[in-house]
């Protein structure tokens, strides 16, 4: 069995489709595909990138914006090969008193930092839904947990985070003062950005091609099983996250039914759109534009799809 060290930026199994990587391991998908995957947990994308380029891992699940910047600056030579959670199910949560996104004018909106994916996504969503974005005061707060906390404590008027965070928060704290202003489906429709991808360095792509292929296939299989049988995901999650109630997991499982990257999540159109959107942000102002081929490699996914066939109707490949 070939080894593959996978760096993930979640401290625990998340309540979003990205959980597929953890669950595929615990449910034995990787073993069956013939690859020994070791999960290395780090707190955030920078640590993951640093570790990847230091050879501390073979593959890293990282944010797209960082990846693009690194590749544009030549700091990392690698490609995105898979996106297990192509669209993190973001949502916008606000104080209960706010009627619609239009009421956000003059109010504060929490983002992790200026120029981050959640910032760009949220601005795009708000604009698409008709809000006057220039009148909204953006407050950089940091990671999703801090944003959720700030919202719950009434320190910001609205913010965005994933459905997983919202689920956690609702279960453990009184959220009567909050409401979901933009639900996740609406959010994704307004801004079809891909936020996280699995990145491998060119070196590893060559030296561990077999392991990567096996890993990709195993992920597709797990995602398809969770799509076909949502209860399977809820069962697996119940073991990983005893702090979350079964009812919530069942609810989420149904919600995620159609969100799984059953075809690898590498929709080239969406990736191109994501790149174009990101390049509008301030962090990309001085950067050289890159071609899609420079940072995306669909060959592993394509090979796996040849094996297991394309699943139509879901997760459009865009090719």
């Amino acid at each position, binding site marked *: 069995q070939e080894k593959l060290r996978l760096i993930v930026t979640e*401290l625990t199994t998340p309540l979003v489709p990205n959980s597929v990587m953890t669950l595929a391991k615990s449910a034995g998908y990787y073993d069956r595909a013939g690859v020994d995957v070791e999960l290395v947990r*780090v707190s*955030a994308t920078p640590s993951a990138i640093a570790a990847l380029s230091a050879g501390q891992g073979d593959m890293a699940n990282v944010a797209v914006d960082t990846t693009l910047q690194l590749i544009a600056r030549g700091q990392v030579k690698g490609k995105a090969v898979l996106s297990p959670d192509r669209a993190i199910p973001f949502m916008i949560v606000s104080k209960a008193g706010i009627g619609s996104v239009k009421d956000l004018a003059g109010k504060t909106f929490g983002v992790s930092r200026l120029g981050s994916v959640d910032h760009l996504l949220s601005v795009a969503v708000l604009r698409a839904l008709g809000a006057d974005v220039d009148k909204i005061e953006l407050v950089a707060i940091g990671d999703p947990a801090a944003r959720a906390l700030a919202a719950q404590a009434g320190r910001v008027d609205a913010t965005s985070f994933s459905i997983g965070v919202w689920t956690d928060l609702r279960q453990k704290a009184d959220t009567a003062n909050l409401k979901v202003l933009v639900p996740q489906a609406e959010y994704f429709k307004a801004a079809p950005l891909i936020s996280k991808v699995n990145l491998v360095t060119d070196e590893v792509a060559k030296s561990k091609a077999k392991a990567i292929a096996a890993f990709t296939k195993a992920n597709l299989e797990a995602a398809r099983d969770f799509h076909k049988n949502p209860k399977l995901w809820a069962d697996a999650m119940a073991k990983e996250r005893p702090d979350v109630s079964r009812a919530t997991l069942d609810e989420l499982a149904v919600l995620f039914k159609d969100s799984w990257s059953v075809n690898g999540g590498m929709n080239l159109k969406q990736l191109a759109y994501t790149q174009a959107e990101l390049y509008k942000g301030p962090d990309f102002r001085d950067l050289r534009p890159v071609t899609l081929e420079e940072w995306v490699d669909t060959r592993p996914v394509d090979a796996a799809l040849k094996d297991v066939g394309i699943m139509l109707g879901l997760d459009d490949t865009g090719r």
Partner: protein
Amino acid sequence: MNREAKTMPDGATRQSSAARALLPAGLKAAPVWLWRLVVLAALLLLWWAVAVFVGRNFVPTPQATALAALRLIENGTLPNATAQSLAVFFTGYGLAAAVAIPLGLLMGGFRPLGATLDVFVNALAATPRVAFIPLIIVFLGLGFEAKVTIIFLGAVMPILINTYTGVLSSDGELVEMARSTGAGDLAIFRKIMLPGSLRSIVAGLRLGAGIGLISTVVAELYTSVRGLGGLLATYGNTFQMDNYFVVVLAFAAIGALVTQGLRMAESRMDRWQYQEERAS
């Protein structure tokens, strides 16, 4: 009449008469451990009140925290994480002490060295450790070495600066006396400067332990997520506040234990210290 100094059963220092004079008569005899219990009780009460009245679900009650602690101990989560954290902490902290004490002695003993390095040490002390983390990961990876390095960087500063300061204020007359017996630089370091600045060094070690523990959290968060720091982040991100508080208290307890140990070493010094004793 018993006005003579008392040694507390727990090795605490004696009551100074200055303090006795300020306390109401009835309380004068209360030993230190009783006072500690009183403060502890007051803190618990405060905690409880905050949890119940203003906590908004983010401050668990002491009872809930205690239950969570039992649970985490029982299922092994806490002991395992503690063991992992202590391993990296003590390695990094030990290294910091082993480097900082001799270097501080040198800087204090050889003034030009001290004056030269001083400003760089200060600059380093003010540089956020998180700033080094990308570099540390790139060069040392995510594992044990990286964590130990981060803890080392945090703990080394207070020990170094306090050792240096202690030596700078060591008694020049005693140094001269030792030199007159023929003692060389090394012997003077060992026999005069080190014992003379012991209190300052121990204070540095205490501060270093605190910062080292805080750095343990940073290390376990920013390199591969493990140990108590990992638990802290996990529970924090998923709003498991009862478990979160257990981890916070675990850190506090470790800090208190380590520094209490140092305090005991320090209290041996009371034996040779002249202490004012007042009549009225």
